[in-house]
């Protein structure tokens, strides 16, 4: 019985469904944090959660469990039976861009806190409306 349960989990479309539910759950937590939290750092965390959820969904739906990572072992020269490397390249770039924006946002938040002592997004009403 146990092995049939494990086999059921192996099937590709089951894994894709798990990935879809899991990453959208993470996306939901990020979106929820974005809409309800008011502290700047919390908002940055929520946006990063949303971004991580998108990357997990992207890779989780596109990978094939039976194919290997797109890297050759020693001595081989044929790139066959491998996963698609382009999503890896895209996500690699997007993660580093996300981190750069993240660090910039943190430095903006520090400077703003130094000048006004506030980190609450709602109370940022310097400008006349």
């Amino acid at each position, binding site marked *: 019985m146990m092995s049939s349960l494990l086999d059921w989990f192996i099937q590709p479309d089951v894994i894709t469904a798990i990935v879809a539910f899991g990453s959208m759950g993470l996306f*939901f937590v990020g979106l929820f944090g974005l809409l309800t939290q008011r502290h700047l750092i919390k908002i940055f965390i929520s946006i990063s959660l949303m971004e991580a959820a998108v990357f997990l969904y992207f890779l989780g739906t596109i990978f094939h469990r039976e194919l290997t990572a797109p890297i*050759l072992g020693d001595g081989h020269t044929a790139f066959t039976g491998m996963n698609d*490397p*382009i999503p890896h*390249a895209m996500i690699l*770039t997007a993660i580093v861009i996300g981190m750069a924006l993240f660090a910039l946002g943190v*430095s*903006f938040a520090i400077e703003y806190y130094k000048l006004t002592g506030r980190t609450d997004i*709602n109370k940022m009403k310097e400008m006349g409306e």
Partner: protein
Amino acid sequence: MNFKRDIPVRTYSGFALSALLVLTILTILLQSSVEKIERAGDKLLGINAQEGVANAVTSVVVYFRGFDTLGEIAVLFIAALGIGLMVSSHKSAQRHKEESNFILQTASKLLFPFITLFGVYVMIYGHLSPGGGFQGGVIIASGVLLLLISYQNFEVPHALITALETLAGISYVLIGLLGLWILDHFLGNFLPSDISDMGMLISGGIIPLIYIIVGVKVGSEMSMIVQNLIQRSDDE
């Protein structure tokens, strides 16, 4: 959008709204069947052999889609510049904190060489094993961060780091322009790269060269970012 009422109403409405949005997205995602079609990456895997690079992801990041990496390096460069601008006003503040404890100092003295060695390894072997410029650069920056935390008077050598960063940036764009002048394709692989020396250290033409330059640039920029942020937070 500033709710005057107390928190719970805002949380519940936020909860309900985001739940609704995500559920609609989820239903659409689950309905759309993802059939196994031949994507651009599989075509690239076919071409990749003649570049002689064992790590297909590195050849995609640096050569096939090298322009994205150049753009991405520009993003990191601007971010480091912006953070430097934001915290530059207090550069002169002396860091008068008390010496951190002895255990941390000896541990970091022991660990720093290995972290840097590992970072350099990841950078140089980027085209053979998983890893590469970005990962290597950030590992080296985390080593520098360890020193910054444990030694109060440790300062990242500003002149050396800026020189390294400038040199790396200029050589990256020049390699790209060389590809343009020699092969008429910007970022073209003008150095010899054939399948025979797959897996050797010197393989894949300009690909390992670019990834090491990327590593140097990312490493120096991240240490500048970390230095600025530590400098900033010590100004109490």
